[in-house]
């Protein structure tokens, strides 16, 4: 069954039923805005919010995650020998994830799942997760996703894509994982395939029409790393930056992390935490030497990573999905669309 109609009256009941198999995550509104949260019993995802303040990356990559532990008590047999925190392989589903956030997870996967190493924490969580997305009927003013390789009804990285039709959801099942989730909810009212796809196409076109902002990335590939790195515009771009790191925290594709140890009495734990390239400590050597000591160097690192290094390394587009969160949240109005324009149009003077 490719398309399923879900009457909104049955939505809550179906979601409740899926809890027998899945742990649920989804957007929840509070006084600070909408956030992707673990949906505890009786909590329903707020499917109406256009974008959450933070992305859905935290479902696979929590802001703080305990990765290893041991005892320091020398009377214990395995003291000082670190062990993995027992993995949670229980099935989970993210409801109401936006298409650009799902695409972002595919970009982040390039970092955590490589030929040489597999990050077991991220990858195990990824494999256990079903992504149930909902298309964005009315994209906001910051959305430039169509120019960043995704869009309001993009299917990349999703297991189910739903369209919000006021009284009902029309769900397009994209993978077996997605089908299994629909079954667990008891959603089984098949919709006509041809008609449904036509409706999706109309909604997509309508939504895409609402997106007025865009970026051009076509010339980034042909420039050398050094040409862009040594370009004269970085001080101007970084001038107003206060290195607060907000852009990196709200970004769905920022994956950098720190590893820290903690000892409490006789137990030791190792954690990984989100980190930010905006912090001087991110690169500071123990000797005091810092390769990215100035804020211009750090701002340049962020944009070069997103718009050049990543592009060159993976040949899968830029490391940005056009969600616009960093533009919206930046306290000093630094705009990645502007920076991209400057980089893309830069011609080195001979």
């Amino acid at each position, binding site marked *: 069954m490719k398309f399923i109609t879900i009457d909104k009256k049955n939505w809550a009941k179906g979601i409740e039923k899926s809890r027998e198999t899945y742990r649920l995550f989804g957007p929840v509104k509070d006084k600070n805005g909408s956030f992707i949260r673990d949906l505890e019993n009786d909590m329903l995802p707020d499917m109406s919010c256009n974008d959450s303040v933070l992305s859905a990356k935290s479902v696979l990559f929590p802001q703080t995650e305990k990765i290893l532990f041991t005892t320091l008590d020398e009377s214990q047999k395995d003291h000082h*020998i*670190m062990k993995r925190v027992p993995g949670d392989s229980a099935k989970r589903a993210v409801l109401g994830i936006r298409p650009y956030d799902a695409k972002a997870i595919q970009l982040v996967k390039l970092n955590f799942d490589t030929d040489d190493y597999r990050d077991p924490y991220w990858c195990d969580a990824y494999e256990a997760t079903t992504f149930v997305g909902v298309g964005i009927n009315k994209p906001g003013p910051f959305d430039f996703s169509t120019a960043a390789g995704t869009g309001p009804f993009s299917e990349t990285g999703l297991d189910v894509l739903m369209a919000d039709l006021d009284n009902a959801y029309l769900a397009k099942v994209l993978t077996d994982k997605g089908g299994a989730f629909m079954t667990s909810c008891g959603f089984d009212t098949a919709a006509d395939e041809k008609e449904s796809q036509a409706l999706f196409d109309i909604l997509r076109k309508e939504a895409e029409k609402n997106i007025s902002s865009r970026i051009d990335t076509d010339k980034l590939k042909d420039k050398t790393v050094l040409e862009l790195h040594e370009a004269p515009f970085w001080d101007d771009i970084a001038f107003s930056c206060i290195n607060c790191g907000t852009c990196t925290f709200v970004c769905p594709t920022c994956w950098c992390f720190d590893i820290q140890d903690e000892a409490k009495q006789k137990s030791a734990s190792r954690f990984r935490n989100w980190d930010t390239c905006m912090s001087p400590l991110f690169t500071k050597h123990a000797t005091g030497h810092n*390769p990215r000591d100035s804020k211009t160097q750090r701002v340049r*690192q962020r944009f*070069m*990573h997103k718009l050049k290094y990543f592009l060159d390394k993976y040949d899968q587009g830029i490391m940005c999905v056009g969600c616009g969160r960093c533009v919206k949240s930046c306290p000093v109005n630094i705009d990645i669309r502007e920076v991209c324009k400057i980089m893309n149009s830069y011609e080195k003077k001979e």
Partner: protein
Amino acid sequence: MENPYLPYPVRIDDIEIATEDKSLKTFKFVFLDPEDEKKFSYRAGQFAELSIPGVGEIPIGIASSPVEKGFVKFTVFRTGVVTSHLHNMKVGDIMGIRGPLGNWYPWDKLENKNVVIIGGGFAFTTLRSSIIYMLDPANRKKFKNIDVVYGARSPGMLLYREELYEWEKRDDIRMHITVDGTNDPTWKYHKGFVPQIVEQNAPKADADTYAIICGPPIMIKFTQPALTALGYKEHQIIMSLENRMKCGIGMCGRCNIGKELVCKDGPVFTLAQLNKTPKEY
């Protein structure tokens, strides 16, 4: 599937004070499980994360050589939280090692070549590993001439002094040991900074000669012109970089120079490669 964050448990088997100011100590570790030693199969030039539960991890070059079996050795400068803690640990203590990590010196490319090793201060650890590897009877014939220029502030600050003096006596390796200065009237080796000793003693480059350099940034900066003057091309100059690291496996994102990650794509780079990347090291 293996967890790349999980260290192999090791026991500190021996601790040796490496320099007269006691700021460096050499730690010898033995794997608790002999199977882990097999898994920790490394080549000269690689590094590992020394992992102290509840304290943290530090990336350190492997000072022992793949031809030395039964243990691994690391020489550590006391400078931050983890290294200070490590300096206070005792023989018999249990901790962890994660690795081996990063790339080794290009041993395949160096076969049948002249190798010039240039080191300064305490950046001599993976170079020691390399020298022991090349001098091993099974390997020596794979290389042509071996020259070593190694310098420190004073005689007591030279690492692995006993070995240096032993190598001095051999005829299959040319040692050029130097110190910035000394009052010791019996000092029989060079006096002067590494770049100057390189210029005066290192062999002139031909197509079959490669230089490996490790040292503080200031030494590297001034050694490069000396090597260029001797005719070394940028692809014949091999360097090992250091940057702040956490994961060591190319994921945490901080050690990059351009799109290259020092931990995974390095730490060994040729000068030709480095000249194409931002100098963020």
